[in-house]
């Protein structure tokens, strides 16, 4: 039953896209579209969470690949991801009701937006390789169109190009993976793939291909190159969808293939996801730390979080391979929990960025500042998002990271030395990325929202409309709830863990005081609610005591600042100067920085300049050579189009003679 709900609403989403084209003259078409999208996402969300008669629902439609048809299926995993997708979808649509009003060319968004939602839902519902890939590529295609919304900007056009190219690269990788899985007979429905037996080399191949394919969509380093270009290019609510939701769909794909279709894992499967995950986490956070473009920064931090998720998945694989059901379940749960969390706070942050963008028409934090005064509500909500994503208690980001750490702490029970020694290293990367992430968001928030406005626009900015604020508030509330009552989330995820890694964490609801204990209370436990209450209690008691016995008087005066009198806001610490220490100490890992200081001689009146140019190593050493190679080959072969007729004849002649010789021998 839920499946049919889901199907009808997906097709309804497609229909909405058509409606947008038909009704384009109507001034409030965009409101209508987004309203309907909210409703449909709502239905889909309900369909996902509504109790299902059987744990697995499936159906087959007579479309798609003729002799296979479109297989659809909802099991615990796809239900979870359906929920995530449509939660994000509904939020984005609600936000867009207000935000979309500012769109100059709405017709470049409206037809594709619902289609994009439909595509993501279809990926999660699909149960055969063909429809999975169709939905997958359809998702890429529609989001590509959305990335090109502001196509006048050459930067965005490039972003769109790189994005779709990488997407199709990943698509081909998946295609080949499914080719191996489906076999020469072409049995592409997941059911028969599950049954089929796979030899060793094939599993390795499929694993690598799946990692490449899904990773390129999720933004796993070094395939992340497109993500920081494409995500910021789109309108903010779409960026939120792409960063918060689409990457999760990719994670879903990875889980589906590796944990489900590929059969029982071997321990070495875990190595690739873990190492690439760690790399992405570090690279992502380091680049995020040096970004001055708010949306780019968020995009890079998405890469970091994806890294975290893949680390957890890798752990789950390692444990599962060794039949350690409980730790596997812990790691798996951590991964899904982080998926859920990241979809929440990344959407929230992108909405905030969108609000800033609309408020001041400015994406670079270097020209912002003091927004906490001009747009207080947004500032508060954005702060919440920052705390959540920086993995600080008592919000939700911390819980999932904490679970990952707990999983890592169980790694000594792994027999294989490679993994045993790899895990702590991964742990360092994880810890580093977490703390660097915090630093990165201190910088982002501090420069953009605190201090004094660096531009007129920042000074006169206004809070966005009620819809946008409402959406952000709702998301923040969810973050808080997930942080305070993690046990509920964990217990919802447990069935998925049971089905996919063959074990489940102890039911958290049974623990006293709503606290969570991954393994046993004697080993480790955490109680967000209690901590939260403690903090509030002590903060307020302190305040009460001080106001009662101490003074509560205060007066305003110019800032002291060690007695320096500085008038211009330009004297504030900028984003790049904030990032300097990290750039110098840790930057070397990911990028090469050149700082040039041009200091005028004494008496010379011109200002001194510090110019920094940062190079992305991965791009320089991996992608640039590739493009160069293609270019050279292209220009080399281009001679073929400039030959004379008898040279062409000579080609034919040569081919003929060659083949005749072949035949003769």
């Amino acid at each position: 039953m839920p499946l049919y709900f889901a199907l009808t609403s997906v097709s309804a989403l497609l229909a909405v896209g058509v409606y947008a084209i038909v009704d384009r003259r109507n001034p409030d078409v965009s409101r209508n579209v987004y309203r309907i999208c909210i409703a449909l996402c709502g239905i889909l969300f309900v369909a996902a969470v509504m109790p299902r008669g059987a744990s697995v629902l499936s159906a087959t439609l007579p479309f798609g690949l003729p002799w296979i048809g479109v297989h659809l299926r909802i099991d615990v995993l796809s239900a979870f991801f359906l929920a995530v997708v449509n939660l994000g979808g509904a939020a984005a649509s609600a936000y867009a009701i207000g935000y979309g009003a500012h769109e100059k060319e709405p017709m470049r968004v409206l037809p594709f937006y619902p289609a994009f939602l439909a595509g993501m839902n279809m990926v999660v519902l699909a149960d055969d390789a063909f429809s999975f890939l169709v939905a997958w590529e359809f998702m890429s295609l529609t989001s590509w169109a959305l990335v090109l919304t502001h196509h006048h900007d050459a930067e965005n056009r490039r972003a769109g190009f790189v994005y779709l190219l990488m997407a199709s690269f990943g698509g081909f990788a998946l295609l080949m993976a499914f080719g191996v899985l489906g076999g020469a007979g072409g049995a592409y429905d997941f059911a028969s793939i599950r049954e089929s037996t796979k030899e060793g080399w094939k599993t390795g191949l499929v694993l690598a291909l799946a990692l490449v394919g899904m990773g390129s969509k999720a933004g796993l380093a070094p395939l992340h190159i497109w993500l920081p270009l494409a995500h910021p290019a789109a309108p903010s609510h779409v960026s939120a969808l792409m960063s918060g939701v689409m990457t999760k769909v990719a994670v879903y794909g990875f889980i589906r293939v590796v944990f489900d279709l590929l059969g029982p894992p071997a321990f070495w499967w875990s190595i690739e996801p873990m190492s690439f995950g760690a790399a992405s986490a570090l690279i992502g956070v380091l680049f995020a730390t040096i970004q001055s473009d708010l949306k780019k920064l968020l995009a890079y931090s998405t890469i970091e979080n994806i890294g975290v998720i893949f680390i957890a998945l890798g752990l789950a694989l390692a444990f599962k391979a060794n039949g350690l059901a409980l730790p596997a379940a812990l790691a798996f749960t951590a991964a899904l929990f982080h998926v859920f969390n990241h979809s929440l706070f990344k959407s929230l942050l992108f909405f905030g960025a969108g609000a800033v963008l609309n408020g001041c028409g400015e994406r670079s934090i270097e020209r912002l500042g003091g927004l906490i005064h001009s747009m207080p509500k947004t500032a508060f909500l954005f702060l919440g998002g920052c705390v959540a994503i920086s993995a600080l208690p008592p919000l939700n980001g911390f819980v999932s990271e904490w679970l990952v750490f707990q999983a890592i702490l169980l790694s000594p029970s792994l027999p294989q030395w490679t993994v045993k020694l790899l895990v702590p290293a991964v742990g360092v990367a994880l810890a580093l990325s977490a703390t660097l992430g915090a630093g990165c968001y201190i910088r982002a928030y501090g420069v953009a929202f605190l201090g004094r406005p660096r531009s007129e626009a920042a000074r006169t900015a206004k809070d966005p409309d009620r819809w946008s604020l409402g959406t952000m508030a709702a998301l923040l509330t969810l973050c808080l709830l997930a942080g305070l009552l993690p046990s509920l989330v964990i217990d919802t995820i447990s069935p998925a863990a049971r089905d996919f890694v063959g074990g489940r964490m102890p039911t958290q609801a049974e623990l006293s005081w709503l606290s969570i204990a991954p393994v046993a209370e004697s080993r480790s436990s955490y109680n967000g609610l209690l901590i939260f209450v403690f903090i509030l209690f002590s903060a307020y008691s302190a305040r009460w005591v001080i106001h009662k016995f101490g003074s509560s008087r205060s007066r305003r005066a110019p800032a002291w600042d060690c007695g320096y009198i500085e008038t211009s806001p330009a004297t504030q610490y900028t984003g790049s100067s904030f990032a300097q220490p990290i750039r110098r100490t840790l930057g070397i890992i990911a990028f090469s920085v050149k700082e040039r200081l041009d200091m005028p001689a004494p008496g010379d009146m011109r200002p001194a300049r510090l110019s920094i140019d940062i190079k992305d190593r991965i791009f320089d050493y991996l992608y640039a050579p590739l493009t160069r190679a293609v270019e050279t080959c292209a220009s080399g072969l281009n001679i073929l189009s400039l030959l004379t007729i008898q040279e062409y004849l000579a080609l034919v002649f040569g081919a003929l003679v060659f083949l005749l010789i072949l035949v003769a021998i």
Partner: protein
Amino acid sequence: MNFLFDFVAQGAQMLLVLALSPLIIGFTRKLKARLLRRKGPPIIQPWRDLIRLLRKEVVLAENASWLYRSAPYLIFAMTWVAASLVPTFATGLMFSWSADLIAIIALLGSARFFLALAGMDIGTSFGGIGSSREAMFGSLAEPATIMIVFTVSFVAGTTQLSEIAAYMAGNLELRASVGMALVALLIVAIAENGRVPVDNPATHLELTMVHEAMVLEYSGRYLALIELASALKLLLYISLIACVFFPVGLARHDAGLQAMAIGLGAYLMKLAIGGFLLALFETSTAKMRVFRVPDFLGAGLMLGLLATLLVFVTRSL
């Protein structure tokens, strides 16, 4: 009855750490002065300062925001909660299970987060300097701490401080890994509390300061809260080291008053020793350049990782 007792014990610990933290500061100052052949202020002096600050009115910069004003309370509260979750004289207190070691570290992290933000709120260059340096130190120190947690919990098989303490007390043995972890933790503690050689709590020389730069604009009760918070942090680290590596005399939560009294005595002893060592160290070293600090902390991180790996070695042998 039992419940009530636990509750009281927990409350007592909260108040205890609150009361002791300024004293440990005063104690170290006193010792340092003595080591320098000065008389030095009385041990109680920090409390006096705090109380005076609390009585003063606050001077706020013009563009200070609500964040700036609420940050001190948050920072204080978070640090206090964290500090009161570390076993001091007794393990397994009522709420000790509500946060394990990782969570405690993360709580300190949140405190740092808000402190750094508060530093940037006024929009002065010093605040920025302080915050950015704090962010960098933090991003190196916390991983090191996490590594130490790994080591300890690989050994003890838990991240609950009470359990760790119990384990350590239970089987005393010398482990290379644990030793390294201790050294790493010392390094981290020094950095996190902004002591010499990383930062000098006594100086206000602009370009060298980190912590002081962030709180430059604070005054009155806000300053008091922040000072108190940093004092609590110092205390927290000392008692953390004490309870993990020297869990001598720690009482169990159901061990009864007498055991607790012993535990308290032992705890005070440890504090005294810790303070003394700290003073000794600080007087015998000079502050290092800011950009050498990362190497210092990096050493801590490396030690932590090494310790973690060595655990396996000792395990496997």
